[in-house]
C-alpha cells in the first residue's frame, strides 16, 4: 500500500497518525466536502472498521499533501530531539570541565568529583522513577517532570508551524506522542538519551583531561572513620571491577588519604582514574543505556499497540458509510407499465334518495355507533363481510332483493388500502345491484392518526378513484366516521334540515 508520491514507506503507526491528523482537519472544517469516492474505495478494499478509516484517511490526506506535512514535522521533531541531545553532551562536557580542578596543592578530592559528576544524574534518575510510578497509577495529578521539557519543545516548534494542514498534523502528533502510554515512553527515551549524551560528554572531557593533565586523587574526612571510606571505596569498586575498571587495593586507598606531609603514591593515580572512569560508565552510562533501550522497546511496543479511538465522534460518524449494513442490488423485476397516478378531487357526498336502503359492510369492525348505521332508514342489513364467502352470500341476498326500490350503501374503512382486490369487491357489489349505490368511508379519524393528515387525504383520493372507476357516482361517496356519535348526529341533523327545507316546497 506504499504510495508512489508519499515520501517514504508508511508504517501502520504512521498511518494511524495520519488518520488522527486528518480527523482534526475535518473537525476544524477542513478537507474536501465530497468524500464519497474515498469512502467507496475504502469499502471496496474491505477489512475491519479501523482499516477502512485508515484507507479513507490516507486517500483523502494524500490530496491535501498531509503525508508530506507529517513527514516534514517528524523530521523537524527528530532534529529538535537531536539538538536537545547535543545540548546534553555539551552540558556534560562543561560540567566535567568545571568539576575536574586541582586545588593549589595539585590535589583533587575524588568523592567530591564523583558526587559532582553523578549526583544530579542519580537524583534525576530517581525523579524519573517516581514519576513513572505516578503515571502507572493512572493519575496525572502532578504533571510529570518529563512534561516540562516536552512542553518547552512543543512551544518552540509550534511557533514554526503555519497553515491548517501543518497545524493539524502538529496537533495530532503532539496529542498522541505527548500523552498517555506513548508519551510516557517517548519522553522517557528522550530523557535517557539526553542524560546519556550528558554522561558521554562528561566521560569524553574527563578522559581528555586525565590524558593531558596530572591529578592526584585524595579523599579526606573530618569526623567520619577512615575505615568507612575504605569500605565505601571497595564497595564502589565492585561493579567497575567486573568491567575490568577497578584495581585499587586497601594499601593504595589508605595511602591516598589527604595528608599535609606527603603526596599520594604515584601508582595510585592510575587506580583512582580508572575507578572514576569505571564509575561514570557503570553507574552513569550503563543504567542510562539500559533504560534508554527499555524505553525505546516499550515505545515501539506501545506504537505497535496504538489503535485509533474509534468511538470518538470524528470516527464514529463514518461507521454507517464505511461499514454499511447492506448493499443495494437494485430492481430485479421491473414494473413495466408504471401507471401515472394523480390526486382525485374531494367532494362532499350524500346518500341517494330512496325509500329503503340495504347496508353492506366490507372488512370493517362493527362501528362504535352500532350496526347497521342509524343513517340508513328502513335498513336491510346485509351484514359485514370479512371474507369472500360472506361477501358472496351477501351479494346473493342483494340479488334476491332486486325487485324492491332499494339503494345500496357499501361501508368501507379508510384504514384499508383501496387496492385492486378491494376494487374487485366494489365492482362485484355494483354488478349485483341495479339501483342507486353509495359508498361510505368510515374511520377517517383513526386513519389520520395512523398515517398523518397528508397521507390520509391521499388515501381518500385513492378510494374515490377506485369507487368511480368501478361505477360509483362521485356524488354518492361520503366520508363519515361511524365511530364518532357526534359526527353522525351532525350529519343526520344537516340531512333532516335539507329534507325539511325541501319538503313543503
Amino acid at each position, binding site marked *: 500500500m506504499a504510495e508512489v508520491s508519499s515520501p517514504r514507506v508508511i508504517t501502520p503507526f504512521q498511518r494511524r497518525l495520519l488518520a488522527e491528523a486528518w480527523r482534526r482537519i475535518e473537525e476544524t472544517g477542513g478537507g474536501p466536502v465530497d468524500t464519497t469516492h474515498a469512502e467507496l474505495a475504502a469499502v471496496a478494499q474491505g477489512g475491519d472498521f479501523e482499516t477502512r478509516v485508515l484507507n479513507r484517511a490516507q486517500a483523502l490526506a494524500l490530496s491535501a499533501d498531509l503525508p508530506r506535512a507529517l513527514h516534514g514535522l517528524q523530521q523537524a521533531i527528530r532534529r529538535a530531539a537531536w539538538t536537545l541531545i547535543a545540548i546534553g553532551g555539551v552540558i556534560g562536557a562543561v560540567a566535567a570541565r568545571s568539576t575536574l580542578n586541582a586545588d593549589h596543592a595539585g590535589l583533587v578530592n575524588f568523592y567530591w568529583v564523583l558526587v559532582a559528576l553523578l549526583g544530579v544524574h542519580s537524583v534525576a534518575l530517581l525523579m524519573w522513577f517516581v514519576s513513572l510510578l505516578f503515571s502507572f497509577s493512572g493519575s496525572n495529578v502532578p504533571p510529570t517532570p518529563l512534561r516540562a521539557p516536552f512542553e518547552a519543545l512543543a512551544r518552540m516548534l509550534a511557533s514554526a508551524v503555519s497553515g491548517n494542514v501543518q497545524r493539524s498534523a502538529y496537533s495530532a502528533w503532539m*496529542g498522541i506522542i505527548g500523552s498517555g502510554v506513548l508519551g510516557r515512553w517517548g519522553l522517557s527515551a528522550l530523557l535517557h538519551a539526553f542524560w546519556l549524551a550528558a554522561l558521554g560528554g562528561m566521560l569524553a572531557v574527563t578522559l581528555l583531561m586525565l590524558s593531558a593533565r596530572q591529578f592526584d586523587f585524595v579523599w579526606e574526612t573530618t569526623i567520619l572513620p577512615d575505615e568507612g571510606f575504605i569500605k565505601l571505596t571497595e564497595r564502589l569498586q565492585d561493579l567497575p571491577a567486573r568491567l575490568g575498571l577497578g584495581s585499587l587495593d586497601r594499601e593504595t586507598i589508605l595511602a591516598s588519604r589527604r595528608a599535609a606531609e606527603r603526596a599520594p603514591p604515584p601508582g595510585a593515580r592510575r587506580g583512582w582514574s580508572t575507578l572514576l572512569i569505571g564509575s561514570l560508565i557503570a553507574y552513569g552510562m550503563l543504567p542510562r543505556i539500559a533504560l534508554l533501550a527499555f524505553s525505546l522497546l516499550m515505545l515501539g511496543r506501545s506504537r505497535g499497540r496504538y489503535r485509533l479511538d474509534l468511538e470518538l465522534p470524528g470516527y464514529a460518524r463514518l461507521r454507517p458509510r464505511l461499514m454499511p*449494513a447492506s448493499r443495494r442490488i437494485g430492481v430485479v*423485476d421491473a414494473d413495466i407499465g408504471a401507471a401515472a397516478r394523480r390526486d382525485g378531487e374531494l367532494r362532499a357526498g350524500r346518500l341517494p334518495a330512496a325509500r329503503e336502503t340495504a347496508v353492506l359492510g366490507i372488512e370493517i369492525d362493527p362501528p362504535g355507533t352500532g350496526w347497521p348505521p342509524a343513517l340508513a332508514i328502513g335498513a336491510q342489513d346485509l351484514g359485514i363481510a370479512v371474507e369472500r364467502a360472506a361477501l358472496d352470500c351477501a351479494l346473493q341476498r342483494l340479488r334476491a332483493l332486486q325487485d324492491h326500490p332499494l339503494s345500496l350503501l357499501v361501508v368501507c374503512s379508510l384504514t384499508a388500502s383501496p*387496492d385492486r382486490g378491494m376494487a374487485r369487491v366494489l365492482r362485484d357489489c355494483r354488478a349485483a345491484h341495479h339501483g342507486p349505490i353509495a359508498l361510505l368511508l368510515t374511520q377517517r379519524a383513526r386513519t389520520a392518526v*395512523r398515517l398523518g393528515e397528508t397521507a390520509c387525504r391521499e388515501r381518500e383520493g385513492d378510494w374515490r378513484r377506485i369507487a368511480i372507476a368501478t361505477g360509483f357516482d362521485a356524488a354518492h361517496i361520503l366520508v363519515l366516521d361511524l365511530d364518532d356519535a357526534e359526527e353522525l348526529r351532525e350529519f343526520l341533523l344537516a340531512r333532516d334540515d335539507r329534507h325539511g327545507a325541501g319538503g313543503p316546497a
Partner: protein
Amino acid sequence: MNGETGLRMAIVGHTNTGKTSLLRTLTRDVAFGEISARPGTTRHVEATSLMVGGRARVDLYDTPGLEDSTTLLALLGEYRERGDGIDRIRSFLDSAAARGELEQEAKVLRQVLGSDVLLYVIDAREPMLGRHRDELMVLGLAARPLIPVLNFTGSAESRESAWREHLARIGLHAVVAFDTVLFDPADERRLYEAVQAMLAPQYDLLQQLIEEREAAWQALRRSAAATVADLLIDAAGAARRVREGNAAEMSSASTWLQERVREREERCIRQLMELFAFRSEDVVAERLAIEHGRWQMDLFAPETLRRFGLSAGTGAVKGAAVGAGIDVIAGGLSLGMAATLGATIGALWSTVDRFGRKLLDRLRGYVDLRVDENTLRVLAARELQLIDALLRRGHASLSQVELKGDAARAPWPGADLPAALRRARHHPEWSTLIARGPGAPEAERAAALHALQEKLLQQLP
C-alpha cells in the same frame, strides 16, 4: 448471485403492511425503495443484500403487495390437475393472466419460487380477514418456509394476540413481532432466529449476522454516548477570564460563551444524526422540536431548565468566582500531596505555576466565566433524549411517532455531576471551544471522555 452459501429472503404481504419499511429497518438504509400510505407504492421487485463479514451474503427482495389474492387463488385452483403447488404456480406464471391483470401477483410468485424463505408481513392493527387466508394459501402452494412478521405491534390498536391465535390455527407458530416504527434490536434478533430455526443449513451464516448486528448495535450506543461525552467535556471546560465587576466585559464574554456552547450542541446533534444514518430534517428531529439542526427551545432559557426539572433561579453562565476559589483550594491540595509524595521539582513547579497564576489572577480581581452546572445537565438530558429516540426508531417510520417528550428528566438528579465531568471543569485545555495550546494532553482528555461515556451509557436503554 451469492454463490453456494448465500441466503435469499423474499418479503411478501398485502399492500401497505410495511414491507419496504421492514426492509429499510433490516438494512439500515433510510432511502431504500419508496414508502407511502397508498397501495401499490412498490410495483417492482427490488433487491438489497445484508453484509455479513464484509460480504453481501443475505439477499432480501422487496416485492409488490398481493392485492387480489382471491382471484389468484381461484385461478390457481383451476390448475389443480397440473401437479403440486409449485407446478400450479409455474403454470400460472406461464399464463396470460400473469402478464395482464395479475402482473404484480406474478412478480411476487416468481420471487417466492426463487427464495429460500418468506417473510410474510402483517399489519397487526388490522383484523384477520379472508384475503389474508387467501394470501397465505397461495404462498403455501410455493412450499417455502414462511415466517409471519407482525408489524405495528407497538401501536395501541395492535391485535397481536388475536393474530397469533389465528395464525396458530392455520399451523403458523413461528410468528415474529417486528415493529418497523418502534425499533427494538431484540425483535430483529428474534426474526433472524426464527429464520435460523427453519433453515438449518444457514444456521452459521445467520448466527454471524446476529452477532454482527449485536456488535454494531453496541458500537452505536457506545459511540453515541461518546459523542455526548465529547460535547459535555467541551462545554464544561470552556472558560473565559474576565475582570470581576466589569459588567460590559462580563456580558460580552457571557454572550460569547453561550454562542460557542450553542454551536457546539448543534454540532453534536449533527454528529448523532450522521451516526444513526438519519437525515437531520428527519421526523425525529421534528418530533423533538429540533429545527435546522437546533433545538427550538434555547439552551439558556429558564424555561428549558424548568422543563428538565432543574431550578432556573440563577443565570446560565456563572459560578465563575466560586470555580476559581475551588481551583485555588484544589491547587493547594495537590501541592501538598505532591510535596508529601516526594514528587518532583518539575511537578511542584508546574503546580505552583498553574495554580499560583490562578491565585494571582484571583487577587487581581479576575474570574473565570463558565457554563453553569445546570446547563451541563440540560445538555446531557437533551442529547440523551435524542439518542433514546434515535435508538428506538426504525429507519422506516414515515408516520408520526409518539415520543415521550415531557417525560425527560435531567440525568444524575440530586447528585453531583460525574467525577470526569467535574474534572473537565478544571481543564480548559481539554475544551475545543477555546483555542488550545500545542500538545494538549489527548490521553488525559480521552480517559475523562471514556469515564463520562460509561456514566452516560447507564442512562441509555
